[in-house]
Structures are given as C-alpha cells and as structure tokens.
C-alpha cells in the first residue's frame, strides 16, 4: 500500500478535540450515504434496535453498490 497526499488518514487520534472534529467529518460522510431516519421516539429491546440498524446499513450498502 502507498499513502499519498498530506491528509491525516490514521484511525488513531489521541487528541480528543481533534478526534471529535475528525469524527464529525466521518459522521457527515456516513449521513450522506444512509437513508434518513424518521423522526420520533421508539422503544424496544437492544436486539430490536440492532435489527433496525443492520437493515438500514444493508439498505445503504446496496444503494452504494448500485452507484
């Protein structure tokens, strides 16, 4: 593997402020790829939320693969 450019691509960032800033950028990229959640309040078991999250991520992956 050859890393080019000057952008910091390491997954490890020990400065919490910088980690937070870079993490928010990653979040924005993720948000752009996944369908929006409908607003509101839900209650359920951890397993139920895991199933919902996995279904959303699978949906997002399929959409990305179709591009």
């Amino acid at each position: 593997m050859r890393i080019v450019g000057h952008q910091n691509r390491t997954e490890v960032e020990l400065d919490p402020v910088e980690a937070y800033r870079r993490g928010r950028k990653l979040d924005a990229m993720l948000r752009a790829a996944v369908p929006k959640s409908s607003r509101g309040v839900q209650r359920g078991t951890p397993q139920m939320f895991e199933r919902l999250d996995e279904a959303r991520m699978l949906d997002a992956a399929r959409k990305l693969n179709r591009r």
Partner: protein
Amino acid sequence: MTPDDPLLRLLERFRQQGVEYVLIGGQAVRLNGYLRATEDVDVLLEPTRANGERTKRAMSFLASSRDLDPGWFEPKEGGEVENIRVADDLIVDLLFAANGETYASVQPYVRDRHRRRGGPRIEYRRAAENQDRLSGEGSARQTGADAHQEPALIALAGHALQPCAQGVYKAWRRPWDDRPDSAGISH
C-alpha cells in the same frame, strides 16, 4: 466544533440538568482515540424516574423529546427496561442495557473529561476504555462495529488509556485537576 454542535449541546444540557449518564459507543470510542463514523449518540442511563425527568428536561431542545415519558426509565418487574431511541436533529439512544452492561456495571470503567470552550465547561463522561469489555462479554452478540474496534482499543490501552492506571476512575467524585493539557482539555 461550533457552539451549535448538537452533541456538545446535548452533553452540556445533561451536565446542567444533572443527568446520570455514561457516554458509550462510537462517540466514546473516538474520544479515546479510535476514529470511526457513527450516526447516533449512545448513552447508558441510570434507570430511575427522576433521571428520566432530568433527561427529558435536558433534551427539550429536540422537538421529539416531548414524547418521552419519565416512567419509561423505571425498571419493570423483573428489572427489565426497554431502550429508547430519540430521532431528531440528533439520533440519541437512551440505553439501560448495552451488551449486557448497565449504568451501574460500567461505573468502575468510567472516567470524566471536561473541556473549556470560552465560557461554559463541557463535560462528557465516558466508558470506552473498556469498550472491549462492553463488546466482548454480556448477553448480546457483538455488532460489526464493536468487533472491528476491539483490537484497536486494546492496542490503544498503553497510550490514550494510560490515565486509567493513574487513578482517574470515577473522577467526578474527586477534586478535579484543572490543569489544561495542550489540547485545552482538563483531565
């Protein structure tokens, strides 16, 4: 990071209202040094009605929070409490159980940090130093993200997590060392 950052606003309001919470999941993992994307904020909460009332007040800036019922924070007979998701400008998962762990069971692994941002102090409480434990044990299976980050967190243990060995567990109960480090973070 701007003053309008919704996550920082949430944590500041948790602090103002005295919510008993522990930040876990992707947000906590990254504050411990391992970066990954996440779309929600996971907080483990003390399961009491009083904490539910505080949480609802703290989250009042999110319109969806008006549907929260503090009674949901009370354990049912048998001790079971259902987790709650508030999806709004932020997606906030209010958890009472995460991979078999609870607010009470993670206490030995929590440490606090707070950051000065010009005026108000922003504080976040975190448990991610033992995210490997949170993802590796318990009744629930590991999620993909948890399983992926575990080796990295173990590798980080000798660096970012070193303060754990210096006795800052449960630091919110101790007088705080307010000396800021180079990043403007007190710890």
